[in-house]
């Protein structure tokens, strides 16, 4: 009897409170431009947030349109977490402008660009579109260095607490817990990845700069003739010649890239091609951030043997 009443009370009370004080108890609505930030927000907020990822690992985050479903999601968001550094230049500003939502405009606590909190690589010395689709703020694909994830986690945890002060303690505890687990995982990855040091790569797009910096790998060329320009036959022929003269150890392409160009080069040069998940959801094993790095390393180690 007592148990039944208590159980009833336990179930009913939150529901009633939720109805009475919806804004206070409603989950923080997080709009993540890319899956990695969605996964990170979920790690740090748990059930205190409902997280929506605008893109998947199979989409190119440069080439997204400000489609109606995204406008609707931004309109209701409490926090927008994006990479920044102009990665979403084509679609995030139109989304923000059409949202009619003051909480997530640049400058508000509800707007966060992850790349602002890490050391960016490949900041171009000169800006000209003849160099391809380059980003004045540096290479925006920061998520493949786990040290960056740790930095962003700290800021994101603090942002969540700022937006939802009632649950600040939860975010702080979850952030500490995540960072501890992340630190342990990084130590493991550092050990595992030792054989990758000095590995030479041909990449598809210049989106593995941070991964290379972390693991000490070296990029020897890219399938794209210029950043953002799809591979051309002339460029691939040139690459085949270069790779026959001085072969790289692996050809790397990401889950959202078409495998055709990488496979073409691999066939001609006998250099193994490897697909990396790039972000959470990019492969079956990359279910979360830990899985992303586990799988990335496993795939690279398989070709580095």
């Amino acid at each position, binding site marked *: 009897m007592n148990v039944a009443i208590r159980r009833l009370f336990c179930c009913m009370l939150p529901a009633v409170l939720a109805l009475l004080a919806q804004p206070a108890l409603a989950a923080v609505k997080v709009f993540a431009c890319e899956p990695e930030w969605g996964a990170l927000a979920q790690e740090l907020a748990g059930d205190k947030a409902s997280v929506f990822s605008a893109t998947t690992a*199979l989409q190119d985050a440069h080439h997204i349109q400000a489609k109606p479903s995204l406008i*609707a999601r931004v309109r209701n968001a409490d926090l927008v977490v994006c990479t920044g550094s102009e990665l979403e230049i*084509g679609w995030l500003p139109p989304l923000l402008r059409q949202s*009619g939502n003051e909480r997530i405009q640049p400058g508000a606590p509800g707007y966060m660009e992850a790349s602002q909190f890490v050391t*960016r690589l490949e900041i171009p010395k000169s800006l000209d579109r003849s160099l391809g*689709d380059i980003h*004045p703020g540096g290479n925006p694909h920061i998520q493949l260095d786990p040290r960056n994830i740790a930095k962003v986690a700290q800021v994101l945890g603090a942002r969540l607490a700022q937006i939802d002060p009632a649950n600040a303690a939860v975010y702080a505890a979850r952030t500490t817990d995540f960072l501890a687990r992340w630190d342990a995982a990084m130590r493991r990855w550092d050990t595992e990845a030792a054989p990758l040091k000095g590995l030479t790569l041909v990449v598809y797009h210049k989106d593995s700069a941070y991964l290379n910096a972390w693991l000490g790998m070296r990029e020897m060329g890219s399938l794209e003739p210029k950043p953002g320009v799809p591979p051309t036959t002339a460029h691939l022929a040139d690459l085949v010649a270069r790779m026959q003269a001085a072969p790289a150890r692996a050809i790397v392409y990401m889950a959202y890239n078409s495998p055709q160009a990488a496979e073409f080069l691999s066939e001609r040069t006998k250099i193994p091609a490897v697909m990396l998940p790039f972000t959470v959801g990019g492969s079956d094993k990359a279910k979360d951030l830990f899985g992303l790095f586990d799988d990335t390393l496993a795939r690279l180690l398989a070709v580095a043997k």
Partner: protein
Amino acid sequence: MIKQTLLAAAVTAALVAPGTALAVTEAEMAELRQQVQQLKRDYEQRIEALEKRLQQAENTTRQTEDVAVRTAEVAAKAEARSAQAESAAVQASARPASESAFNPAVSVILNGRYGNLSQDPAGYRIAGFAPTGSDISPGKRGFSLGESEIAFAANVDHYFRGTLIATVQPDDTIGVEEGYFQTLGLSHGLTLKAGRFYANIGYQNDIHAHAWDFTDTSLASRAFLGGQFADDGLQLKWLAPTDTFFELGAEAGRGRSFPGSDRDKNGVGSTNLSARLGGDVGSGGAWLVGLSNLRTTARNRSYNDLNALGTQVGNSFSGASNLWVLSGILKWAPKGNDTQTNFKLQGEYFRRTESGSLAYDTAAITPAGTQSGSLNSAQSGWYMQGVYQFMPRWRAGYRYDRLNSDSVKLGLVEAGTLAAADFPIYSRYNPKRNTLMLDFSPSEFSRLRLQVADENSQPGARDKQVFLQYIMSLGAHGAHNF
């Protein structure tokens, strides 16, 4: 030192022991032996302890060395970082530290084409529909510069954003295509816009020409909106707080261009109400449907026509125009990744009713002079187009246009004052057009296009058109609007 002491003790013992051996007793000998044993044990213990300490010291040194190596690594990393920071600082300091640092984002669109038309564009009409003249013309024959667009945009402050889009026409005139401010996150899903802007009518009206999928706009847009309808006024949009996109819009404006007309009057000359609903379908599809209603009040909206005798006369319409537009668009890409292949299906249906008075020969150049009578019309039209990107950078598209003029009821004709032949533009006709397009985009910022069309806009004047077009975007990155 330890060894020396030990040696000394041993030597002393050796020297002393044999000399006194004869004199000492057996018991004394045993005692002495015990003492030496004790001494030996003591020293051994001490040596052991010292060896241990030595080992520890050695370990510590090794650890210190390790730490030193690690410190060096950290220092190297820190150095690399500081080098990056320095380069960032150089980048930052390279920005002009002057007033121009707050310059708005500037972009320029260059647009030009080669046109091959089998009919003279000067005589272009859409039979059965009123707008005539340059607004709806298919453009010049031969090489011609399209309109060049110069756009400036920046946040005014934390409340407003301003945009000015000017066009430089090939005839050396400069126009304001759009010039407006809009609020930045007014909250509650509200956005207010004021100035000159493309009205939120159907799907394509507020898209700039350089972002169209075909060289020209639909016949329906020409017939019902005079090409594209931009008005001076206010726009308020409200976005519903739902996960499905639902937006309501209301506009009030001057109604300065077709289907309205500029007029010397206070108040509102045009209103436009719109509702749009959109969402996703599957993992790779997105859709948007819209319904809008544009009401304008025209005063002396003039057009030229040939009367029964072949004399060019100027007529004008005054009255109310009510246009409904239903639009739908579906975009699809495998798994939502449109970089390799994607498909876009777009269609709009227009229906317009007009009622008011029509003044014939406003300049009174014919013997009959200016005459006036009622006008009542209900006209419709639609188009449907599909564009498919079949491989990166290459797209092909097809468009079908169709208009139904229905019969326009003219009071002057019904009363017998003038003949239907005096209003050939209002003779019943159903114009149609088939268009094929192929375009190549070397990068996101450039596009080259070939378009062929077979247009039947006037009875007995089939126009076969070929267009070659270029569109180049310079400067600030354009928006990927849906």
